[in-house]
């Protein structure tokens, strides 16, 4: 119980402080520092799992963190720390280049980010599907103010759609949770439980029709939140209207939370019936999402929406990994996607800020304006598109190999083609941004510092691609 409180101490204190400190320049640095401290703290709390001394830590009834969960907590905290470090630069640059944001808005931003971090951390601590639902809905509510940051009509529209579509989607996940609970009450468990660890143990005795119904609703509900096709409509709007550090967090950590919900629900149904037809739905929906996203990627004309659709594609791959029942591949795909995509959103944020437009047709000649950023953008988009030897290439390869083992030949072929299409699409779009005549009104502020965090992230996904031994998985 003490350790549980410890995990939430730093973000809650920082959230409070951000509201009261007058100078937002100080708040920005404080929040970044606090996020890195939080990362150190998370590592020390989860150390027994990370070193392999124990497989799970139980904090309270219904709150157990396992190996996958603890890796995800690390990833989430890391992503938030990177985004906040960059946010400090981003808002400074905004004050120099364009119209500075009001202090009150920045204060709220920093406070909300910390609450958002707490909500996301608690998602991965949940063993109970009920708590999991509450935590995931809390991530929606706490990230809505981040999407509404710009306070203009577009941001308003994006926030409204985000809030309503995700809340209704998640409501169906709640219905699924109710059905799973009802299934557990018609089993050996007697009075019923929502704890995944107990559900798995007596999975064979659960009322299967109810469990299946519950699983399908959970898949659709959390799928809406993760942005699987055709329930993705809110995602490109929210990701493109939020300020760059917030987009990075939405894409690099929030999507993982919803996918973790699907993963938890799927562990129960696979324990009940390993070859249930309903479970094949997961792989099919994942593959469909990849295909649909690759088509949307080709016909984009907005830089940030392009990356949003690329996130949808990666969500498809992660759902596919869940459909194959592979936790490690699910995490590796999430890890590589988060690192590369956060890097991309941050560097694209700089470009959009300097050029004053998100339209792909008006962005060109980055190489002339700022060679440093051009390099970062090129590397990060290669990493996201899955070029070797970056981490996502290795995971995508293992994913396709594994899918052949599961006899998903058609799906594997579809995904293969879609990945090639989106690879070409992404490279064509970034090629246009990088090459050509430079823009005369491109306002670069502190070029090297701006590229620091994105470059570090790209380097780390490269290191993963080179160092992690995929054969052993």
């Amino acid at each position, binding site marked *: 119980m003490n350790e549980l409180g410890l995990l939430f101490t730093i973000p809650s204190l920082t959230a409070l402080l951000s509201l009261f400190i007058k100078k937002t320049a100080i708040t920005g640095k404080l929040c970044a520092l606090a996020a890195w401290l939080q990362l150190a703290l998370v590592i020390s709390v989860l150390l027994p799992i990370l070193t392999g001394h124990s497989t799970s830590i139980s904090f309270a009834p219904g709150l157990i963190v396992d190996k996958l969960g603890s890796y995800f907590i690390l990833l989430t905290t890391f992503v938030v720390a990177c985004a906040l470090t960059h946010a400090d630069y981003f808002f400074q640059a905004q004050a120099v280049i364009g119209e500075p944001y009001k202090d009150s808005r920045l204060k709220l931003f920093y406070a909300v980010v910390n609450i958002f971090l707490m909500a996301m951390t608690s998602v991965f601590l949940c063993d109970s599907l009920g708590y999991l639902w509450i935590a995931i809905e809390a991530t929606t509510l706490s990230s809505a103010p981040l999407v509404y940051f710009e306070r203009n009509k577009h941001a308003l529209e994006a926030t409204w759609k985000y*809030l309503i579509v995700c*809340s209704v989607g998640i409501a169906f996940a709640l219905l699924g949770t109710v059905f799973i609970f009802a299934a557990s009450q018609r089993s050996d468990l007697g009075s019923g439980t929502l704890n995944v660890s107990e559900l798995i143990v007596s999975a064979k005795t659960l009322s299967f029709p109810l469990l299946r119904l519950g699983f399908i609703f959970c898949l659709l509900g959390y799928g809406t939140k993760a942005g699987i096709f055709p329930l993705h409509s809110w995602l490109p709007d929210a990701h493109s*209207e939020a300020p760059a550090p917030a987009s990075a967090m939405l894409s690099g950590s929030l999507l993982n939370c919803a996918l973790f919900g699907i993963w938890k629900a799927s562990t129960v149904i696979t324990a009940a019936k390993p070859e249930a037809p309903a479970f094949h739905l997961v792989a099919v929906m994942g593959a469909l999402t990849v295909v649909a996203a690759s088509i949307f990627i080709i016909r984009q004309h907005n830089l940030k929406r392009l990356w949003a659709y690329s996130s949808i594609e990666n969500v498809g791959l992660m759902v596919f990994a869940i459909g194959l029942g592979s936790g490690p591949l699910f995490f590796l795909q999430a890890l590589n996607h988060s690192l590369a995509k956060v890097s991309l959103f941050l560097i694209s944020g700089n470009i959009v800020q300097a050029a004053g437009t998100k339209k792909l047709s008006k962005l060109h000649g980055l190489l002339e304006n700022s060679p440093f950023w051009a390099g970062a953008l090129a590397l990060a988009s290669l990493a996201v598109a899955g070029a070797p030897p970056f981490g996502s290439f290795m995971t995508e390869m293992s994913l396709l190999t594994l899918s052949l083992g599961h006899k998903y030949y058609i799906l594997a072929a579809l995904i293969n083609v879609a990945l090639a299409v989106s690879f070409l699409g992404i490279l064509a779009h970034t090629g246009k941004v990088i090459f050509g005549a430079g823009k005369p009104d491109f306002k670069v502020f502190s070029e090297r510092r701006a590229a620091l965090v994105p470059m570090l992230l790209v380097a780390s996904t490269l290191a993963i691609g080179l160092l992690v031994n995929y054969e052993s998985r």
Partner: protein
Amino acid sequence: MQLSTFEALAMLSAVLGILILGTTLLRTNLSFYRFHTLAIVALTVWIGHITKEAHLYIVAAAVLLVKVLFIPSFLGWVMKKAEVGSDKQAFIAAPLSMHLGAIMLGISYLLSSRIPGLEGVHQEGSHLGSTAAMSILFTGVLLMLTRRAALSQILGFLVIENGIYLFAVTQTHGMPMLVEMGLLLEVLVGVMISGLLLFNIKKSFEHIDVSQLTDLKD
């Protein structure tokens, strides 16, 4: 046909839910939502009485406080401040959508007896609990699909949430109390955030017709 108290209360909540569809006057909608939720509270208390599950009384009291007393009053206040009275251009005329709701109630009855596992745990052989829950779910979806005003969207979400709550009450022996309370808190916070957004929509666009929010697309 004789209805037990359980069945009568379940049906009452479903019918009161359908009546929300019957008018585009937002204030009347809110009142019907209040009565509809009150019927659900009564049902919760009744189930608590027959199953002797004391925690259901606490849940019922919390639902009464949040969803019957606070939320409709809050939304009423938002309406007054934003100066909106009715949802004029619904996609389907109100009487028609109410009839659709009634048809959905019938479909729910057929569906709930077909889908295995929805027998309910409190009344042997009775499907009316899940029929009512399913019908309320459909009512909420209809409300969200056929109305344009932002406030109707919030109301639709609340009705859907009520349907799910009714599923939880009739199909299980009560969800764990912490989960129920967390859920209520989320609904409360969600409604307050969307209420604030509604103000801003009214201020920026000078209307609350969300079907006109179509600037963002590919």
